[in-house]
């Protein structure tokens, strides 16, 4: 086969596999019933509870979101991406790779992520968290066979820490900025989106060294493969499903929970 075409063919095969094994959501049965078409009715309630300004029980849930109409469309786009690409890919991943192997993949990725976490611990002057992260990295890289096993988590005081550039910026007083739904990645805000760029850069610098140590020549293909595995692994480990809160206000809930969680993460 033409060497140039090979990646394309492999890619197409992968997509076909996703479509065959993963399917696209639910198996749909169609029904026709003229009584069930939800035709407009003339009924109007006499009493109403239209929105009023001030004195609301839920106003603590409000988040600064000046780009909301755009964000809501991106949220919608992400939901579609999730249903038709990411979740089917996760389905194939789970079919092809047994659970213990997937656990190993998660562990290796988490172990590689310890270094950016460590950098952020240092940037915030968090000695204990930095020490825990350093110990974890050395223990798991050696006894954990290059991170395949997470032996460190067996110790109560060596739990994985969560720090990133967004939290570092927050720690030094940078505010959230406007809420922002990142295309493909989900809830964020201006500060955390900048932070995401910073973390990606740290990981890139780390991986260049890892590839050099491992003697990988074709770093471009390896990087693509790594990104793909990281994306699928990340999705496989997040139980969230779009439109499964059973609430028409899911966007508002996710926005509030994200913002609250980040606020607490910065304090941690």
């Amino acid at each position: 086969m033409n060497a140039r075409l090979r990646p394309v063919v492999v890619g197409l095969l992968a997509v076909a596999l996703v479509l065959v094994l993963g399917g696209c959501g639910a198996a749909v049965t169609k029904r026709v019933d003229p009584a069930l078409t939800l035709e407009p009715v003339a009924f109007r309630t006499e009493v109403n509870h239209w929105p009023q300004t001030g004195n609301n029980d839920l106003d603590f849930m409000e988040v600064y979101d000046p780009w909301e109409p755009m964000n809501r469309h991106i949220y919608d786009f992400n939901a579609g991406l999730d249903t038709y690409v990411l979740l089917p890919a996760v389905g194939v991943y789970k079919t092809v790779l047994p659970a213990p192997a997937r656990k190993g993949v998660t562990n290796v990725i988490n172990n590689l992520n310890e270094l950016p976490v460590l950098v952020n611990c240092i940037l915030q002057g968090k000695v204990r968290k930095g020490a825990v992260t350093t110990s974890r990295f050395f223990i798991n890289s050696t006894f954990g066979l290059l991170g395949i096993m997470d032996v460190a988590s067996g110790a109560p005081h060596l739990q994985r820490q969560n720090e990133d550039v967004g939290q570092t910026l927050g720690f030094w007083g940078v505010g959230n900025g406007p809420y922002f739904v990142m295309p493909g990645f989900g809830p964020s805000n201006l500060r955390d989106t900048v932070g995401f760029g910073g973390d990606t850069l740290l990981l890139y610098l780390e991986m260049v060294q890892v590839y050099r140590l491992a003697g990988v020549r074709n770093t471009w293909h390896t990087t693509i493969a790594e990104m793909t595995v990281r994306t699928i692994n990340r999705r496989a480990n997040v139980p969230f499903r779009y439109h499964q809160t059973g609430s028409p206000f899911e966007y508002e809930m996710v926005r509030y929970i994200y913002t609250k969680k980040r606020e607490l993460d910065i304090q941690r």
Partner: protein
Amino acid sequence: MSPSAAVLFAAALFAAALCAATPVAADYRYPYTDPYQATVYGTPPDQIYRPANPVEPKLRAIRIEGRKVPDIFSYSADMYYSTALQKGEAPLIFLIAGTGAEHNAIKMGFLTQVFHDAGFHVVALSSPTHMNFVISASRHGAPGYVPHDVDDLYRVMLWIKEVVEAERPVSGYSVAGYSLGALHAAFLAHRDSETGDFGFRKVLMINPPVSLYHSVKRLDSWLTAENLGEVTVREQIESLITRFSHYYRDADITDLDDNFLYEMVTRVNMDDVDLRSLIGVDFRLSASSMIFASDVCLQAGYVVPPDEYPLTKGKPLMDYAEAVFDISFENYMDEFLLPYLQYLDPSMDRYTMMRQSSLYDIRSYLMETDKIMLIGNTDDVILNDNDLAFIRSVFGDRAKLYPTGGHCGNMMYAPFVEAMLAMVKP
């Protein structure tokens, strides 16, 4: 009598009274004796019943062609349900979710596993009060009136019967539900006894209300001064969020799994007032989703002013979320549901609506049939003494009541699950 002897005597009396009230197997040691704790905490992870062979349920959908689904709900245009089928011939059991719950909610997923493991084809359905059901499958678009909701369920179940029978041999039908779904199950059995479409072999009611409206009034009351006293709803919710936030902030953990959530909920300090308000908030959120979905489907002008239609996908909804959160279920019933039912049928009145949504309406059927079994708890927080008396007098030996467990708190507790299975096993 010495003080210590008096204490012993009192303890013996107390124990005797407990035994007399609760003829339950000795192996029933559900840990929470406070019904509100039971309802909120559920079953500790290490005491949950574990089916031997877990199954991955299949997601399915029904699409009613030509249905005018509002644009902002286009993601909910299909009615979703899940199935877990056996490989060969088997009896089929329909599961009906509780108020506001989806076909794959935690309790539903659990029941799906349990009944599949026991040899049933399982079909799990969302509650007609879940927004997806309202938007995609409800005929009148306003849930809470049981006869309409049961019509909708029955129609959908007939369709699903065709789907499953085209794939696997089915040796008979049963139906089970928890909470409001249990009340629906009883009405489905009654309907089936008239039409004979399914010929239900067994019907299992798990923690049913006796009267939908009496139970929701209780739940409503937990967000009023009756429960909260001087504290406002807003202050109460903020106080709860602060407590949970502090627990999370101080916990040295990154992966938030079910065990973490269980530990958080059980370790955060909450008294009965807090627990009741938490149940009340949860119920209010379910009701909010349902009411908003109905209002938009019918454009009834209840929450969304008529001149704000059409709602587009980019439209911020926070103002509506805040407005609809302040509506109690009873408000909805009096201000929306009853007038709407009267619009559909001018002879409808409040008493009829309430009666037709309670087990009193099918009392004689429930007394004479022997296929309906009931399992629940005497300390269920949605039942009062009259409801318990009704259950005992109508179901007699067919009701198995545990002394503790609150509302569905012990539903995953192994002895409860085993009793449940024994009641419907072929």
